[in-house]
């Protein structure tokens, strides 16, 4: 549980005003606003069922399927008594009849107070926020951004480590294509983070991201094996490696087992070390690890609900 003292290290404005402020990219919110959301999420965690959004309608427009993010948003809205409308795939909307995104957004804006949108095209969320008269929360736009995942990751790190500063954080797996990794690395560059980047050669973190880390005067170390990293870090952030990302399928077969976390590998981990994963997992974390005190990925998914409660209530201006 987060104690109030944790937030005292940040000069947050209790009365931050996010009313009607769309969230498309994590950088749309200042550091104070991001911390303010985490602070509010901690309050919702203590008291999640509140009838504060009963006069509001939340639209969840999912142009491509997503179980976790959509249900997490809908659970957050429902627990705060909002009405939820929307669709869970483009096939069940007028998009299948050829409607443009702009028309869909303008129409749905008439029926709701806020739009949560996932769309396969990059930049679609910024465009939706530009045309919509109501605020928009980006729930993932192609490979571009997924800022609510980033906030829930930050919340999970803060909750388990008691701080966001001066942490050693390892990212393991596909560091080249994963938008979750890119967004979180960018967010962690706001703090004094040391990055440990573990990936196959083909899937290293893009150089522009490494330049970004260097420009912030932070350190990163690159590895191709996970074992030596585990004892050094506070957070082990696992991601899925997809076969189709490899130019050479033989290379995939050669390296795939090196990125599977198994229980014995955690023997030398620090006591407080936690394993995070944006989920869904396929086989990169062995199910045996679920029983370990280090496993935190399911709680991490639960934290998403509190963070989304904080976002919905702040943007709708009820807190």
């Amino acid at each position, binding site marked *: 549980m987060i104690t109030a003292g944790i937030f005292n290290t940040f000069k947050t404005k209790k009365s931050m005003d996010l009313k009607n402020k769309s969230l498309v*990219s994590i950088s749309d919110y200042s550091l104070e606003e991001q911390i303010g959301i985490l602070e509010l999420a901690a309050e919702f965690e203590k008291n999640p069922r509140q009838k504060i959004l009963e006069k509001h309608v939340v639209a969840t427009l999912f142009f491509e399927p997503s179980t976790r993010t959509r249900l997490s948003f809908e659970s957050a809205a429902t627990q705060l008594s909002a009405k939820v409308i929307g669709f869970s795939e483009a096939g069940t909307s007028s998009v299948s009849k050829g409607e*443009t*995104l*702009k028309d869909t957004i303008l129409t749905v804006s008439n029926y709701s107070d806020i739009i949560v949108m996932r*769309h*396969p*095209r*990059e*930049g*679609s969320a*910024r*465009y939706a926020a530009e045309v919509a008269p109501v605020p928009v929360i980006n729930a993932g*736009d*192609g*490979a*571009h*951004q997924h800022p609510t995942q980033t906030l829930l990751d930050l919340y999970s790190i803060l909750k388990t480590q008691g701080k966001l500063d001066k942490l050693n954080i390892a990212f393991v797996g596909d560091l080249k294509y994963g938008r979750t990794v890119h967004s979180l690395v960018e967010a962690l560059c706001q703090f004094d983070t040391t990055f440990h980047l573990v990936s196959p050669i083909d899937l290293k973190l893009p150089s522009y991201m490494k330049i970004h880390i260097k420009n912030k005067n932070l350190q990163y170390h690159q590895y191709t094996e996970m074992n030596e990293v585990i004892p050094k870090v506070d957070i082990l952030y696992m991601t899925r490696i997809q076969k189709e990302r490899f130019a050479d399928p033989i290379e995939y077969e050669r390296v795939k087992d090196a990125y599977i976390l198994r229980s014995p590998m955690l023997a030398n981990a620090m006591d407080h070390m936690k394993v995070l994963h944006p989920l869904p997992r396929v086989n990169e974390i062995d199910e045996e690890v679920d029983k370990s005190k280090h496993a935190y990925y399911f709680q991490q998914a639960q934290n998403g609900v509190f963070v989304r409660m904080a976002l919905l209530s702040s943007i709708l201006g009820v807190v």
Partner: protein
Amino acid sequence: MEERKELKVNAIENGTVIDHIPTQSVFQVIHMLNLNECENQILFGTNLESQKYGRKGIIKVSNRFFDPSDVNKIALIAPTATLIEIKNFKVVNKKNVILPDTVKQFVKCVNPNCITNHEKVTQKFNVIDKTEIKLQCLYCEKVTAKDNFTFI
């Protein structure tokens, strides 16, 4: 020498002269300013001698004066260009083009999955590198470099 220059590129009575265009960019500038659809008299030259740049291109458009947003776009492909406005055969205004911080409706975003390549969205970019000329899409945030410019 002066006489030879006159023969190469005739003077215009009223209009705009775009001088000191990098010679390889002349046709891009013509396309970008939609001059291929312009009914005014237009003269252009490439591979002309230039004391300053070795070789240069020039475009003269009669009875046409460009607005600042067009001028800014020229700077992105022809940063050395000079704009000279002529009235009654006299130079009334001469200025270097200035690289803008942002640009609209100029090139396509390089990212095939960007929303701007699939819906009628006004293309908008931030100019993030004024030396190498790199544009960052305001929507998908991908960077389009000069070599990948596809003009709208």
